[in-house]
Protein backbone atom coordinates (compact mmCIF):
# COMPACT_ATOMS: atom_id res chain seq x y z
CA UNK A 1 0.00 0.00 0.00
CA UNK A 2 1.19 3.45 -0.84
CA UNK A 3 0.78 4.84 2.63
CA UNK A 4 2.61 1.95 4.26
CA UNK A 5 5.64 2.29 2.00
CA UNK A 6 5.67 6.09 1.99
CA UNK A 7 8.63 7.62 3.74
CA UNK A 8 7.89 8.65 7.36
CA UNK A 9 8.28 12.34 6.55
CA UNK A 10 5.42 12.23 4.10
CA UNK A 11 3.24 10.35 6.53
CA UNK A 12 3.99 12.99 9.12
CA UNK A 13 3.15 15.79 6.73
CA UNK A 14 -0.06 14.03 5.86
CA UNK A 15 -0.99 13.72 9.49
CA UNK A 16 -0.33 17.40 9.96
CA UNK A 17 -2.57 18.33 7.06
CA UNK A 18 -5.21 16.08 8.51
CA UNK A 19 -4.78 17.76 11.89
CA UNK A 20 -5.11 21.19 10.30
CA UNK A 21 -8.23 20.12 8.46
CA UNK A 22 -9.80 18.72 11.62
CA UNK A 23 -8.81 21.80 13.63
CA UNK A 24 -10.20 24.27 11.14
CA UNK A 25 -13.20 22.03 10.63
CA UNK A 26 -14.00 22.70 14.27
CA UNK A 27 -12.88 26.30 14.56
CA UNK A 28 -13.40 27.51 11.00
CA UNK A 29 -17.12 28.22 10.69
CA UNK A 30 -17.36 30.31 13.85
CA UNK A 31 -14.10 32.09 13.03
CA UNK A 32 -15.37 33.01 9.57
CA UNK A 33 -18.65 34.32 10.99
CA UNK A 34 -17.02 36.35 13.79
CA UNK A 35 -14.21 37.83 11.73
CA UNK A 36 -16.49 38.31 8.73
CA UNK A 37 -18.88 40.36 10.84
CA UNK A 38 -16.23 42.37 12.68
CA UNK A 39 -12.71 42.66 11.30
CA UNK A 40 -13.78 42.68 7.68
CA UNK A 41 -16.47 45.38 8.02
CA UNK A 42 -14.26 47.38 10.39
CA UNK A 43 -11.57 47.60 7.71
CA UNK A 44 -14.19 48.39 5.12
CA UNK A 45 -15.52 51.17 7.34
CA UNK A 46 -12.04 52.68 7.38
CA UNK A 47 -12.12 52.82 3.60
CA UNK A 48 -15.65 54.23 3.48
CA UNK A 49 -14.64 56.87 6.03
CA UNK A 50 -12.27 58.34 3.44
CA UNK A 51 -14.98 58.60 0.80
CA UNK A 52 -18.01 60.66 -0.04
CA UNK A 53 -20.71 58.08 -0.62
CA UNK A 54 -24.49 57.90 -0.37
CA UNK A 55 -24.69 54.16 -0.97
CA UNK A 56 -25.93 54.49 -4.54
CA UNK A 57 -23.73 56.79 -6.61
CA UNK A 58 -20.12 55.74 -7.10
CA UNK A 59 -18.03 56.76 -4.09
CA UNK A 60 -15.53 59.59 -4.39
CA UNK A 61 -12.19 59.44 -2.61
CA UNK A 62 -11.74 62.35 -0.22
CA UNK A 63 -8.60 61.49 1.69
CA UNK A 64 -8.96 62.66 5.29
CA UNK A 65 -11.50 65.38 4.52
CA UNK A 66 -14.27 63.67 6.51
CA UNK A 67 -12.05 63.63 9.57
CA UNK A 68 -11.11 67.27 9.14
CA UNK A 69 -14.77 68.15 8.86
CA UNK A 70 -15.45 66.58 12.26
CA UNK A 71 -13.35 69.25 13.92
CA UNK A 72 -15.63 71.92 12.54
CA UNK A 73 -19.05 70.39 13.15
CA UNK A 74 -21.08 72.10 15.89
CA UNK A 75 -23.73 69.34 15.90
CA UNK A 76 -21.10 66.70 16.50
CA UNK A 77 -19.58 68.87 19.21
CA UNK A 78 -22.97 69.06 20.92
CA UNK A 79 -23.38 65.28 20.59
CA UNK A 80 -19.97 64.79 22.18
CA UNK A 81 -20.97 67.07 25.04
CA UNK A 82 -24.19 65.13 25.69
CA UNK A 83 -22.30 61.84 25.57
CA UNK A 84 -19.65 63.09 27.99
CA UNK A 85 -22.24 64.42 30.43
CA UNK A 86 -24.16 61.16 30.22
CA UNK A 87 -21.04 59.06 30.83
CA UNK A 88 -19.75 61.29 33.61
CA UNK A 89 -23.05 60.80 35.45
CA UNK A 90 -23.78 57.21 34.50
CA UNK A 91 -20.44 55.52 35.20
CA UNK A 92 -19.83 56.72 38.79
CA UNK A 93 -23.50 56.32 39.70
CA UNK A 94 -23.69 52.79 38.34
CA UNK A 95 -20.57 51.85 40.31
CA UNK A 96 -21.75 53.50 43.54
CA UNK A 97 -25.26 52.15 43.31
CA UNK A 98 -23.93 48.73 42.33
CA UNK A 99 -21.59 48.64 45.30
CA UNK A 100 -24.21 49.89 47.76
CA UNK A 101 -26.81 47.40 46.61
CA UNK A 102 -24.30 44.55 46.46
CA UNK A 103 -23.23 45.23 50.06
CA UNK A 104 -26.88 45.38 51.11
CA UNK A 105 -27.74 42.18 49.24
CA UNK A 106 -24.75 40.47 50.84
CA UNK A 107 -26.26 40.89 54.33
CA UNK A 108 -27.77 37.87 56.01
CA UNK A 109 -31.23 39.39 56.29
CA UNK A 110 -34.67 38.25 55.36
CA UNK A 111 -36.25 38.72 51.92
CA UNK A 112 -32.82 39.19 50.41
CA UNK A 113 -33.66 36.77 47.59
CA UNK A 114 -36.81 38.71 46.79
CA UNK A 115 -34.95 42.03 46.77
CA UNK A 116 -32.31 40.56 44.50
CA UNK A 117 -34.91 39.31 42.04
CA UNK A 118 -36.60 42.72 41.95
CA UNK A 119 -33.33 44.54 41.28
CA UNK A 120 -32.20 42.12 38.56
CA UNK A 121 -35.46 41.81 36.63
CA UNK A 122 -35.21 45.10 34.65
CA UNK A 123 -31.95 43.81 33.19
CA UNK A 124 -33.87 41.48 30.86
CA UNK A 125 -36.10 44.27 29.52
CA UNK A 126 -35.06 45.36 26.04
CA UNK A 127 -34.08 48.90 25.14
CA UNK A 128 -37.26 49.24 23.10
CA UNK A 129 -39.50 48.13 25.96
CA UNK A 130 -37.54 50.21 28.46
CA UNK A 131 -37.81 53.25 26.21
CA UNK A 132 -41.58 52.99 25.85
CA UNK A 133 -42.04 52.29 29.54
CA UNK A 134 -39.82 55.22 30.48
CA UNK A 135 -41.72 57.58 28.19
CA UNK A 136 -44.85 56.53 30.03
CA UNK A 137 -43.47 56.67 33.56
CA UNK A 138 -41.84 60.07 32.94
CA UNK A 139 -44.74 61.45 30.93
CA UNK A 140 -45.23 65.08 32.04
CA UNK A 141 -49.06 64.84 32.10
CA UNK A 142 -49.99 61.45 33.50
CA UNK A 143 -46.68 59.82 34.36
CA UNK A 144 -46.37 58.20 37.76
CA UNK A 145 -43.21 60.17 38.61
CA UNK A 146 -44.98 63.50 38.30
CA UNK A 147 -47.92 62.05 40.22
CA UNK A 148 -45.45 61.25 42.97
CA UNK A 149 -44.00 64.77 42.85
CA UNK A 150 -47.47 66.32 43.02
CA UNK A 151 -48.43 64.17 45.97
CA UNK A 152 -45.57 65.66 47.98
CA UNK A 153 -46.43 69.15 46.71
CA UNK A 154 -43.47 69.47 44.37
CA UNK A 155 -43.89 71.02 40.92
CA UNK A 156 -44.25 68.51 38.07
CA UNK A 157 -41.33 68.33 35.63
CA UNK A 158 -41.00 68.01 31.88
CA UNK A 159 -38.35 65.24 32.09
CA UNK A 160 -37.71 63.81 28.61
CA UNK A 161 -39.35 66.83 27.03
CA UNK A 162 -37.01 69.32 28.67
CA UNK A 163 -33.68 70.16 27.07
CA UNK A 164 -31.98 70.48 30.45
CA UNK A 165 -33.46 67.38 32.09
CA UNK A 166 -33.38 64.89 29.27
CA UNK A 167 -29.81 63.64 29.75
CA UNK A 168 -30.07 63.13 33.53
CA UNK A 169 -33.39 61.33 33.02
CA UNK A 170 -31.71 59.06 30.45
CA UNK A 171 -29.06 58.34 33.09
CA UNK A 172 -31.78 57.30 35.53
CA UNK A 173 -33.43 55.06 32.95
CA UNK A 174 -30.12 53.46 32.01
CA UNK A 175 -29.33 52.83 35.66
CA UNK A 176 -32.71 51.18 36.12
CA UNK A 177 -32.03 48.82 33.25
CA UNK A 178 -28.39 48.03 33.85
CA UNK A 179 -27.52 48.36 37.52
CA UNK A 180 -28.25 44.66 37.86
CA UNK A 181 -24.96 44.07 36.05
CA UNK A 182 -22.76 46.09 38.43
CA UNK A 183 -24.59 44.61 41.40
CA UNK A 184 -23.91 41.09 40.16
CA UNK A 185 -20.24 41.85 39.55
CA UNK A 186 -19.76 43.44 42.97
CA UNK A 187 -21.72 40.69 44.69
CA UNK A 188 -19.45 38.08 43.15
CA UNK A 189 -16.38 40.09 44.18
CA UNK A 190 -17.67 40.53 47.75
CA UNK A 191 -18.21 36.83 48.08
CA UNK A 192 -14.68 36.21 46.85
CA UNK A 193 -13.12 38.21 49.67
CA UNK A 194 -11.63 35.67 52.07
CA UNK A 195 -13.56 35.60 55.34
CA UNK A 196 -10.30 35.38 57.26
CA UNK A 197 -9.42 38.91 56.21
CA UNK A 198 -12.53 40.56 57.60
CA UNK A 199 -12.52 38.35 60.68
CA UNK A 200 -8.90 39.16 61.44
CA UNK A 201 -9.69 42.86 61.24
CA UNK A 202 -12.67 42.43 63.54
CA UNK A 203 -10.58 40.50 66.04
CA UNK A 204 -7.99 43.27 65.92
CA UNK A 205 -10.67 45.63 67.12
CA UNK A 206 -11.77 47.35 63.93
CA UNK A 207 -15.44 48.28 63.80
CA UNK A 208 -17.61 47.37 60.85
CA UNK A 209 -17.22 50.69 59.11
CA UNK A 210 -13.44 50.47 59.38
CA UNK A 211 -13.47 46.91 58.08
CA UNK A 212 -15.46 48.09 55.08
CA UNK A 213 -13.22 51.10 54.47
CA UNK A 214 -9.83 49.45 55.00
CA UNK A 215 -10.42 45.80 54.12
CA UNK A 216 -13.40 45.42 51.80
CA UNK A 217 -12.97 48.48 49.58
CA UNK A 218 -9.28 47.84 48.77
CA UNK A 219 -10.16 44.25 47.90
CA UNK A 220 -12.77 45.52 45.45
CA UNK A 221 -10.44 47.87 43.58
CA UNK A 222 -9.49 45.59 40.68
CA UNK A 223 -13.10 44.74 39.95
CA UNK A 224 -13.98 48.43 40.21
CA UNK A 225 -11.41 49.35 37.58
CA UNK A 226 -12.67 46.61 35.30
CA UNK A 227 -16.32 47.60 35.74
CA UNK A 228 -15.54 51.30 35.33
CA UNK A 229 -13.83 50.64 32.01
CA UNK A 230 -16.66 48.41 30.87
CA UNK A 231 -19.37 50.87 31.82
CA UNK A 232 -17.47 53.75 30.22
CA UNK A 233 -17.28 51.89 26.92
CA UNK A 234 -21.01 51.13 27.16
CA UNK A 235 -21.91 54.71 28.08
CA UNK A 236 -19.90 56.28 25.27
CA UNK A 237 -21.90 54.16 22.83
CA UNK A 238 -25.35 55.02 24.10
CA UNK A 239 -27.82 54.67 21.26
CA UNK A 240 -30.74 52.26 21.73
CA UNK A 241 -32.33 54.08 24.60
CA UNK A 242 -32.05 57.46 22.90
CA UNK A 243 -33.70 56.03 19.82
CA UNK A 244 -36.59 54.54 21.77
CA UNK A 245 -37.25 57.55 24.02
CA UNK A 246 -36.41 60.87 22.43
CA UNK A 247 -34.78 60.18 19.05
CA UNK A 248 -32.22 62.79 19.95
CA UNK A 249 -34.74 65.43 20.99
CA UNK A 250 -35.97 67.77 22.27
CA UNK A 251 -34.11 70.13 19.93
CA UNK A 252 -31.22 67.68 19.68
CA UNK A 253 -30.57 67.90 23.41
CA UNK A 254 -30.15 64.14 23.79
CA UNK A 255 -28.29 63.46 20.58
CA UNK A 256 -25.35 61.22 21.45
CA UNK A 257 -22.37 60.46 19.23
CA UNK A 258 -23.69 57.09 18.09
CA UNK A 259 -27.13 58.55 17.51
CA UNK A 260 -25.42 61.20 15.38
CA UNK A 261 -23.68 58.43 13.43
CA UNK A 262 -27.03 56.75 12.89
CA UNK A 263 -28.60 60.04 11.84
CA UNK A 264 -25.87 60.87 9.33
CA UNK A 265 -26.04 57.32 7.99
CA UNK A 266 -29.77 56.68 7.76
CA UNK A 267 -31.35 60.11 7.47
CA UNK A 268 -28.74 61.96 5.43
CA UNK A 269 -27.15 58.97 3.61
CA UNK A 270 -23.69 60.30 4.43
CA UNK A 271 -22.01 56.90 4.61
CA UNK A 272 -18.50 58.32 4.57
CA UNK A 273 -18.98 60.94 7.24
CA UNK A 274 -20.92 58.53 9.48
CA UNK A 275 -18.03 56.05 9.25
CA UNK A 276 -15.48 58.77 10.01
CA UNK A 277 -17.38 59.84 13.13
CA UNK A 278 -17.66 56.25 14.33
CA UNK A 279 -13.92 55.79 13.81
CA UNK A 280 -13.31 58.98 15.75
CA UNK A 281 -15.42 57.65 18.63
CA UNK A 282 -13.62 54.32 18.43
CA UNK A 283 -10.22 56.01 18.78
CA UNK A 284 -11.38 58.20 21.68
CA UNK A 285 -12.88 55.16 23.41
CA UNK A 286 -9.59 53.30 23.03
CA UNK A 287 -7.65 56.25 24.42
CA UNK A 288 -9.99 56.65 27.39
CA UNK A 289 -9.82 52.92 28.10
CA UNK A 290 -6.06 52.92 27.83
CA UNK A 291 -5.85 55.97 30.11
CA UNK A 292 -8.02 54.29 32.75
CA UNK A 293 -6.00 51.09 32.63
CA UNK A 294 -2.67 52.92 32.82
CA UNK A 295 -3.92 55.06 35.70
CA UNK A 296 -4.96 51.92 37.53
CA UNK A 297 -1.59 50.29 36.82
CA UNK A 298 0.29 53.26 38.19
CA UNK A 299 -1.74 53.02 41.37
CA UNK A 300 -0.67 49.40 41.58
CA UNK A 301 -3.91 47.80 40.48
CA UNK A 302 -3.92 44.83 38.18
CA UNK A 303 -7.37 44.62 36.75
CA UNK A 304 -6.63 43.02 33.41
Amino acid at each position, binding site marked *: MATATAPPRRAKARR*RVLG*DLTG*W*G*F*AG*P*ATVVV*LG*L*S*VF*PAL*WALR*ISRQRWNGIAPPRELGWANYERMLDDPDLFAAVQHTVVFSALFVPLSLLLGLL*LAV*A*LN*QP*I*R*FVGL*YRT*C*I*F*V*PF*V*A*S*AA*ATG*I*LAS*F*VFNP*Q*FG*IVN*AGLRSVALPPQQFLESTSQVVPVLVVISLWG*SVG*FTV*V*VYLAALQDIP*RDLTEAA*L*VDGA*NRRQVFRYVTVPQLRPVTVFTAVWQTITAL*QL*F*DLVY*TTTRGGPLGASQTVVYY*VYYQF*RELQRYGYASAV*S*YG*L*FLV*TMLVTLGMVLYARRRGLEAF
Partner: protein
Amino acid sequence: MAQDTASTAADVPDAVEHAVTAPVRGRHWLPFSPWHLVLAPTALVFVLPLVQMVLTSFMDDSEINRFPPRFWPSSLDLGGGGGFGREAAGGYIGLFTQTPVLRWLLNSLVVSTVGVVAHLVLCSLAGYGFARLRFHGRQLGFFLIVGTVMIPTQLLLVPTYVMFARLGLVDTIAAAFVPWLASAFGIFLMRQFFLSLPSELEDAARIDGCSTFGVFWRIVLPLARPALATLTIFTLLGAWNDLVWPLIAINDEDAYTIQRGLADFQGTRRTQWSLLMSGNVVATMPLIVAFLLAQRQFVATMTFSGLKG
Protein backbone atom coordinates in the same frame (compact mmCIF):
# COMPACT_ATOMS: atom_id res chain seq x y z
CA MET B 1 -37.35 41.74 65.82
CA ALA B 2 -35.91 39.07 68.02
CA GLN B 3 -36.35 36.43 65.37
CA ASP B 4 -34.44 38.51 62.92
CA THR B 5 -31.40 38.74 65.17
CA ALA B 6 -31.64 35.05 65.89
CA SER B 7 -31.73 34.06 62.26
CA THR B 8 -28.87 36.45 61.52
CA ALA B 9 -26.75 34.92 64.21
CA ALA B 10 -27.53 31.48 62.89
CA ASP B 11 -26.39 32.54 59.45
CA VAL B 12 -22.97 33.57 60.71
CA PRO B 13 -21.04 30.35 60.93
CA ASP B 14 -18.09 31.60 62.90
CA ALA B 15 -18.50 32.16 66.60
CA VAL B 16 -15.66 34.70 66.61
CA GLU B 17 -17.35 37.14 64.32
CA HIS B 18 -20.60 36.73 66.14
CA ALA B 19 -18.99 37.47 69.48
CA VAL B 20 -17.25 40.55 68.14
CA THR B 21 -20.20 41.95 66.29
CA ALA B 22 -22.84 41.13 68.84
CA PRO B 23 -22.48 44.39 70.81
CA VAL B 24 -22.86 46.42 67.62
CA ARG B 25 -25.97 44.53 66.74
CA GLY B 26 -27.36 45.10 70.20
CA ARG B 27 -27.70 48.81 69.42
CA HIS B 28 -30.56 48.25 67.03
CA TRP B 29 -32.81 51.27 66.89
CA LEU B 30 -35.18 49.45 64.57
CA PRO B 31 -37.12 46.24 64.99
CA PHE B 32 -35.49 45.01 61.76
CA SER B 33 -32.14 45.31 60.02
CA PRO B 34 -31.54 48.87 58.75
CA TRP B 35 -30.53 47.38 55.40
CA HIS B 36 -34.21 46.87 54.73
CA LEU B 37 -34.51 50.66 54.58
CA VAL B 38 -32.15 50.64 51.60
CA LEU B 39 -33.38 47.50 49.91
CA ALA B 40 -37.13 47.70 50.23
CA PRO B 41 -37.57 51.12 48.54
CA THR B 42 -34.96 50.26 45.90
CA ALA B 43 -36.60 46.96 45.06
CA LEU B 44 -39.91 48.80 44.79
CA VAL B 45 -38.46 51.39 42.41
CA PHE B 46 -37.08 48.61 40.22
CA VAL B 47 -40.29 46.58 39.92
CA LEU B 48 -42.89 49.32 40.10
CA PRO B 49 -42.50 50.43 36.46
CA LEU B 50 -42.90 46.81 35.34
CA VAL B 51 -45.98 46.38 37.51
CA GLN B 52 -47.42 49.56 36.10
CA MET B 53 -46.65 48.34 32.60
CA VAL B 54 -48.73 45.22 33.20
CA LEU B 55 -51.56 47.12 34.90
CA THR B 56 -51.69 49.78 32.20
CA SER B 57 -51.87 47.16 29.49
CA PHE B 58 -55.29 46.24 30.92
CA MET B 59 -56.64 49.80 30.95
CA ASP B 60 -58.18 51.60 28.03
CA ASP B 61 -56.78 54.87 26.79
CA SER B 62 -59.46 57.12 28.22
CA GLU B 63 -58.70 55.71 31.64
CA ILE B 64 -54.97 56.17 31.19
CA ASN B 65 -55.37 59.76 30.08
CA ARG B 66 -57.55 60.64 33.05
CA PHE B 67 -56.31 63.17 35.54
CA PRO B 68 -55.12 62.54 38.21
CA PRO B 69 -53.43 59.41 36.87
CA ARG B 70 -54.60 56.03 38.08
CA PHE B 71 -52.43 53.12 38.99
CA TRP B 72 -55.01 50.35 39.25
CA PRO B 73 -57.33 49.62 36.35
CA SER B 74 -61.00 50.09 37.28
CA SER B 75 -61.83 46.88 35.48
CA LEU B 76 -59.90 44.29 33.57
CA ASP B 77 -60.06 45.70 30.06
CA LEU B 78 -58.65 43.75 27.16
CA GLY B 79 -59.28 46.68 24.89
CA GLY B 80 -62.12 45.18 22.91
CA GLY B 81 -65.26 46.28 24.69
CA GLY B 82 -65.34 49.97 23.86
CA GLY B 83 -68.48 51.52 25.33
CA PHE B 84 -69.71 54.95 24.26
CA GLY B 85 -66.93 57.41 23.60
CA ARG B 86 -64.34 54.82 24.42
CA GLU B 87 -61.36 54.42 22.24
CA ALA B 88 -61.34 50.76 21.39
CA ALA B 89 -57.90 50.79 19.82
CA GLY B 90 -55.88 49.99 22.89
CA GLY B 91 -54.99 46.89 24.82
CA TYR B 92 -54.43 43.35 23.73
CA ILE B 93 -57.31 42.97 21.31
CA GLY B 94 -56.28 46.10 19.48
CA LEU B 95 -52.70 44.94 19.53
CA PHE B 96 -53.41 41.57 17.99
CA THR B 97 -56.11 42.65 15.53
CA GLN B 98 -54.75 45.97 14.29
CA THR B 99 -51.02 45.37 14.23
CA PRO B 100 -48.87 42.53 12.87
CA VAL B 101 -47.53 41.89 16.37
CA LEU B 102 -48.13 38.16 16.10
CA ARG B 103 -46.00 38.06 13.00
CA TRP B 104 -43.27 40.04 14.78
CA LEU B 105 -43.30 37.72 17.76
CA LEU B 106 -42.98 34.79 15.41
CA ASN B 107 -40.10 36.49 13.58
CA SER B 108 -38.37 37.16 16.90
CA LEU B 109 -38.89 33.55 17.90
CA VAL B 110 -37.28 32.37 14.66
CA VAL B 111 -34.43 34.87 15.00
CA SER B 112 -33.72 33.87 18.61
CA THR B 113 -33.98 30.15 17.89
CA VAL B 114 -31.65 30.32 14.91
CA GLY B 115 -29.25 32.48 16.93
CA VAL B 116 -29.23 30.17 19.94
CA VAL B 117 -28.87 26.95 17.95
CA ALA B 118 -26.15 28.37 15.70
CA HIS B 119 -24.34 29.81 18.71
CA LEU B 120 -24.41 26.52 20.57
CA VAL B 121 -23.16 24.55 17.59
CA LEU B 122 -20.58 26.93 16.16
CA CYS B 123 -19.15 28.28 19.43
CA SER B 124 -18.83 24.93 21.16
CA LEU B 125 -17.13 23.45 18.08
CA ALA B 126 -14.76 26.39 17.83
CA GLY B 127 -14.21 26.52 21.57
CA TYR B 128 -13.23 22.85 21.56
CA GLY B 129 -10.98 23.31 18.55
CA PHE B 130 -9.14 26.23 20.13
CA ALA B 131 -8.92 24.52 23.52
CA ARG B 132 -7.82 21.01 22.58
CA LEU B 133 -6.80 20.57 18.96
CA ARG B 134 -3.40 21.46 17.53
CA PHE B 135 -3.44 23.03 14.09
CA HIS B 136 -1.78 25.79 12.08
CA GLY B 137 -3.09 29.28 12.72
CA ARG B 138 -4.79 28.28 15.94
CA GLN B 139 -3.18 30.95 18.07
CA LEU B 140 -3.50 33.69 15.48
CA GLY B 141 -7.14 32.81 14.91
CA PHE B 142 -7.97 32.88 18.58
CA PHE B 143 -6.02 36.09 19.10
CA LEU B 144 -7.96 37.80 16.29
CA ILE B 145 -11.28 36.59 17.67
CA VAL B 146 -10.56 37.89 21.16
CA GLY B 147 -9.34 41.15 19.62
CA THR B 148 -12.71 41.72 17.94
CA VAL B 149 -14.40 42.43 21.27
CA MET B 150 -12.74 45.84 21.07
CA ILE B 151 -14.55 46.68 17.83
CA PRO B 152 -17.71 48.58 18.74
CA THR B 153 -21.01 47.92 16.98
CA GLN B 154 -21.35 51.50 15.77
CA LEU B 155 -18.22 51.08 13.67
CA LEU B 156 -19.90 48.23 11.81
CA LEU B 157 -23.23 49.88 11.04
CA VAL B 158 -22.46 51.24 7.57
CA PRO B 159 -20.37 48.40 6.09
CA THR B 160 -22.60 45.68 7.54
CA TYR B 161 -25.64 47.35 6.03
CA VAL B 162 -23.91 47.58 2.66
CA MET B 163 -22.79 43.98 2.98
CA PHE B 164 -26.32 42.83 3.85
CA ALA B 165 -27.69 44.82 0.93
CA ARG B 166 -25.29 43.12 -1.47
CA LEU B 167 -26.10 39.69 -0.07
CA GLY B 168 -29.81 40.39 -0.42
CA LEU B 169 -30.43 40.16 3.33
CA VAL B 170 -31.98 43.60 3.76
CA ASP B 171 -35.67 43.44 4.69
CA THR B 172 -35.44 39.75 5.55
CA ILE B 173 -35.33 38.29 9.05
CA ALA B 174 -31.89 36.90 8.17
CA ALA B 175 -30.57 40.43 8.72
CA ALA B 176 -31.68 40.07 12.33
CA PHE B 177 -30.14 36.64 13.01
CA VAL B 178 -26.94 36.66 10.96
CA PRO B 179 -25.18 38.92 13.52
CA TRP B 180 -26.13 36.35 16.19
CA LEU B 181 -24.83 33.18 14.53
CA ALA B 182 -21.61 33.18 16.55
CA SER B 183 -19.72 35.56 18.79
CA ALA B 184 -16.26 36.10 20.20
CA PHE B 185 -17.78 35.94 23.66
CA GLY B 186 -19.30 32.53 22.94
CA ILE B 187 -16.09 31.08 21.54
CA PHE B 188 -14.09 32.46 24.45
CA LEU B 189 -16.56 31.14 27.02
CA MET B 190 -16.61 27.65 25.55
CA ARG B 191 -12.83 27.52 25.17
CA GLN B 192 -12.31 28.51 28.79
CA PHE B 193 -14.80 25.89 29.86
CA PHE B 194 -13.17 23.11 27.84
CA LEU B 195 -9.74 24.08 29.16
CA SER B 196 -11.05 23.64 32.70
CA LEU B 197 -12.06 20.02 32.03
CA PRO B 198 -9.48 17.34 32.82
CA SER B 199 -8.28 15.78 29.57
CA GLU B 200 -7.95 12.21 30.91
CA LEU B 201 -11.48 11.28 29.89
CA GLU B 202 -10.88 12.40 26.34
CA ASP B 203 -7.55 10.57 26.20
CA ALA B 204 -9.20 7.38 27.38
CA ALA B 205 -11.94 7.67 24.76
CA ARG B 206 -9.34 8.28 22.08
CA ILE B 207 -7.38 5.18 23.08
CA ASP B 208 -10.63 3.24 22.82
CA GLY B 209 -10.80 4.34 19.20
CA CYS B 210 -13.15 7.30 19.34
CA SER B 211 -12.75 9.89 16.57
CA THR B 212 -12.09 13.55 17.38
CA PHE B 213 -15.66 14.45 16.66
CA GLY B 214 -16.87 11.41 18.62
CA VAL B 215 -14.89 12.58 21.65
CA PHE B 216 -16.36 16.04 21.32
CA TRP B 217 -19.91 14.87 20.76
CA ARG B 218 -20.14 11.96 23.21
CA ILE B 219 -17.70 12.84 25.98
CA VAL B 220 -17.11 16.57 26.15
CA LEU B 221 -20.40 18.16 25.13
CA PRO B 222 -22.52 16.38 27.76
CA LEU B 223 -20.17 17.78 30.39
CA ALA B 224 -20.52 21.30 29.03
CA ARG B 225 -24.11 21.85 30.08
CA PRO B 226 -23.48 24.79 32.45
CA ALA B 227 -21.47 26.65 29.82
CA LEU B 228 -24.08 25.87 27.18
CA ALA B 229 -26.81 27.20 29.49
CA THR B 230 -24.89 30.45 29.93
CA LEU B 231 -24.39 30.69 26.19
CA THR B 232 -28.07 30.04 25.53
CA ILE B 233 -29.13 32.84 27.85
CA PHE B 234 -26.54 35.23 26.46
CA THR B 235 -27.73 34.64 22.91
CA LEU B 236 -31.40 34.63 23.81
CA LEU B 237 -31.14 37.98 25.62
CA GLY B 238 -29.03 39.46 22.85
CA ALA B 239 -31.01 38.22 19.87
CA TRP B 240 -34.49 38.73 21.33
CA ASN B 241 -33.70 42.23 22.61
CA ASP B 242 -31.54 43.39 19.72
CA LEU B 243 -32.67 46.63 18.18
CA VAL B 244 -29.75 47.98 16.17
CA TRP B 245 -29.54 45.44 13.36
CA PRO B 246 -33.26 45.16 12.67
CA LEU B 247 -33.43 48.95 12.79
CA ILE B 248 -30.65 49.37 10.26
CA ALA B 249 -31.49 46.55 7.92
CA ILE B 250 -35.22 45.86 8.11
CA ASN B 251 -37.80 48.33 6.85
CA ASP B 252 -40.38 45.85 5.69
CA GLU B 253 -43.07 45.48 8.36
CA ASP B 254 -43.50 41.80 7.60
CA ALA B 255 -39.88 41.10 8.52
CA TYR B 256 -39.81 43.20 11.72
CA THR B 257 -38.73 41.62 14.96
CA ILE B 258 -40.86 42.47 17.97
CA GLN B 259 -38.31 45.04 19.18
CA ARG B 260 -38.19 46.73 15.80
CA GLY B 261 -41.97 46.82 15.79
CA LEU B 262 -42.11 48.32 19.27
CA ALA B 263 -39.64 51.01 18.30
CA ASP B 264 -41.89 51.82 15.36
CA PHE B 265 -44.96 52.02 17.60
CA GLN B 266 -43.12 54.67 19.55
CA GLY B 267 -43.33 56.88 16.49
CA THR B 268 -46.66 55.91 14.97
CA ARG B 269 -48.85 55.19 17.98
CA ARG B 270 -47.40 57.63 20.42
CA THR B 271 -50.56 58.24 22.40
CA GLN B 272 -52.10 54.77 22.34
CA TRP B 273 -50.61 53.85 25.65
CA SER B 274 -52.60 50.74 26.38
CA LEU B 275 -51.59 49.33 23.02
CA LEU B 276 -47.97 50.30 23.62
CA MET B 277 -48.01 48.75 27.07
CA SER B 278 -49.59 45.50 25.94
CA GLY B 279 -46.97 45.37 23.19
CA ASN B 280 -44.33 45.88 25.85
CA VAL B 281 -45.81 43.09 27.94
CA VAL B 282 -45.84 40.53 25.15
CA ALA B 283 -42.29 41.50 24.16
CA THR B 284 -40.89 41.39 27.69
CA MET B 285 -42.83 38.67 29.47
CA PRO B 286 -41.17 35.69 27.77
CA LEU B 287 -37.79 36.80 29.07
CA ILE B 288 -39.08 37.79 32.50
CA VAL B 289 -40.69 34.38 32.92
CA ALA B 290 -37.50 32.68 31.73
CA PHE B 291 -35.56 34.83 34.17
CA LEU B 292 -37.77 33.89 37.09
CA LEU B 293 -37.51 30.21 36.20
CA ALA B 294 -33.75 30.15 35.70
CA GLN B 295 -32.52 33.03 37.79
CA ARG B 296 -29.27 31.36 38.77
CA GLN B 297 -28.20 30.80 35.17
CA PHE B 298 -29.25 34.30 34.21
CA VAL B 299 -27.16 35.79 36.98
CA ALA B 300 -24.19 33.67 35.92
CA THR B 301 -24.61 35.03 32.40
CA MET B 302 -24.85 38.60 33.65
CA THR B 303 -21.61 38.11 35.55
CA PHE B 304 -19.83 36.90 32.44
CA SER B 305 -21.08 39.36 29.92
CA GLY B 306 -21.93 42.97 30.43
CA LEU B 307 -24.15 43.04 27.46
CA LYS B 308 -26.71 45.80 27.33
CA GLY B 309 -26.58 48.71 24.93
